[in-house]
């Protein structure tokens, strides 16, 4: 194992089909909700992401939330965006997160602050996600700060993750970008949530053709939809997301849209597990609906989780 004890890394290296989920911290200073969700997910996931001011909305920080969920016995995946911190703050946070027991970090660009509740904030983006991946790996493998200076003491040994979006454009470049991230040092990948299965399968074909599935662990992102309106919103209002009309229609026609949304999610997971080689796990993003994850994991045949 290359990281300093990441459970997620062990599960993946042992060849299990991993399950990760996502917790969205609150817009206030009370951690009870985070702890409650962690308890709920405890037996159903191998690790869980904590988002980092998702859509640029101020929330309890990812690292602080990580401390709370560690306390509840769940392994955190710290999300770190490039939007809010310069490289000095990033490294300080990485050292801090590791010292607090966190072992997984997901490196991403981060939604532009225009989408959030502080659109007048300064736009940092000192380093981009590709550089962050590379430099976090280098911190671990070569004990170097981003500047190249040697670290004299304990280096943070993270299991390094990144994201891939098969639904953004240019499509043919998305696999090149994934390869570039793998070359930069990414060890696990979580994809944007999948609704257009056909496009995802084409993406995975290209991934396998380059042998990327042998070099990195790809977890397919899925999100249960609550209503046809939610589906419509994702379809039209979120950049980089594709939702086929068939899904919108299916939810509209359903008597119980929420139940149908969960069914669709479970079908997707089963389909991917059985028919899309090269995928090593699933990442269930049920933001503001974390309660539904145990049901999804159970009915998708992914319970119980392997014990280490």
């Amino acid at each position, binding site marked *: 194992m290359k990281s300093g004890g990441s459970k997620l890394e062990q599960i993946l290296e042992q060849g299990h089909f991993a399950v990760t989920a996502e917790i969205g911290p609150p817009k206030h200073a009370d951690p009870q909700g985070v702890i409650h969700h962690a308890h709920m997910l405890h037996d159903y996931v191998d690790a869980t992401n904590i988002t980092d001011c998702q859509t640029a909305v101020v929330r309890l920080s990812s690292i602080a939330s990580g401390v709370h969920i560690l306390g509840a016995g769940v392994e955190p995946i710290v999300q770190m965006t*490039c*939007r809010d911190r310069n*490289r000095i703050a990033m490294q300080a946070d990485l050292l801090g997160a590791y010292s607090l027991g966190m072992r997984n970090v997901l490196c*991403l*660009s*981060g*939604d*532009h602050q*225009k*989408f959030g509740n502080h659109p007048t904030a300064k*736009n940092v*983006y*000192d*380093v*981009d*996600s*590709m*550089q962050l991946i*590379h*430099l976090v790996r280098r911190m671990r493998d070569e004990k170097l700060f*981003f500047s190249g200076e040697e670290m004299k003491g304990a280096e943070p040994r993270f299991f390094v993750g990144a*994201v*891939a*979006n098969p*639904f*953004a*454009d*240019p499509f043919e*470049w998305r696999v*090149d*970008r994934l*390869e*570039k991230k793998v*070359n*930069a040092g990414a060890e696990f990948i979580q994809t*944007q949530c999948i609704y257009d299965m056909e496009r995802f399968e084409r993406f995975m074909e290209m991934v396998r053709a380059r042998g990327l599935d042998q070099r990195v662990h790809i977890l397919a992102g899925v999100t249960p939809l609550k209503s046809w309106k939610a589906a419509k919103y994702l379809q039209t209002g979120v*950049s*980089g*997301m594709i939702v086929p009309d068939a899904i919108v229609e299916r939810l509209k026609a359903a008597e119980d849209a929420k139940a149908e949304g969960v069914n669709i999610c479970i079908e997707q997971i089963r389909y991917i597990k059985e028919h899309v080689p090269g995928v090593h796990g699933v990442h269930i993003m049920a933001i503001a609906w974390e309660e539904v994850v145990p049901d999804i994991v159970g009915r998708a045949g992914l319970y119980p989780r392997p014990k280490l």
Partner: protein
Amino acid sequence: MIVAEQKPLAEIADMIKDCKKVLFAGCGGCVTVCLSGGEKETEVMATALRMKRQLEGNPLETVTYTATRQCDPEYVEAMADAVKGVDAVVSLACGVGPQYLAARYPDLWVIPAQNTAFAGGSKEHGVWEEFCGLCGQCVLHLTGGICPVIRCSKSIMNGPCGGSQYGKCEISKDVDCAWHLIYERLKRLGRLDLMREYREPKDWSKARDGGPRRITREDVMIG
């Protein structure tokens, strides 16, 4: 050119409300080209504010002068007569002009008429867009001639991010994704290898982050 947009007339009127005589100083440089602070715009502004003050029963005497530029001391020196006896000068130059005026005429009350916005060019007559990030370390040769610092909303060096869709940036359907443009161009040139190369973090100390910058040419300094 540097592209600036005039502040609303009401805002400028408010800034000179206690003045009786004002010099409106235009600039023959960038702001003439982007049609916001040249000779014509200066006259229009002076006339409009004169008329406004007359309607308010508080007449304003105006003087106009359009400098060749307001960013060279020699041209600002030539304004010495024009600034005599005025209560304030409203400079229609970009942000540099008012600063030069304030420095050369320290007893003069200087007002900026522009919200200076960016370094860019015109797309069509009447439309200007930002093109250069003024980063101090140009990488246009690596990106097919498209600036990733300023035309990418996240200044990504290894793009595009996951928010690029249909060639547009996630922040708006009216903003092209710079990395999509870079991809198309490098593809056309057969140089996608440039996009596969890992780019190191930028040295922002060469940009504004390192503090106010200075460039010299010893060979032309008269000394």
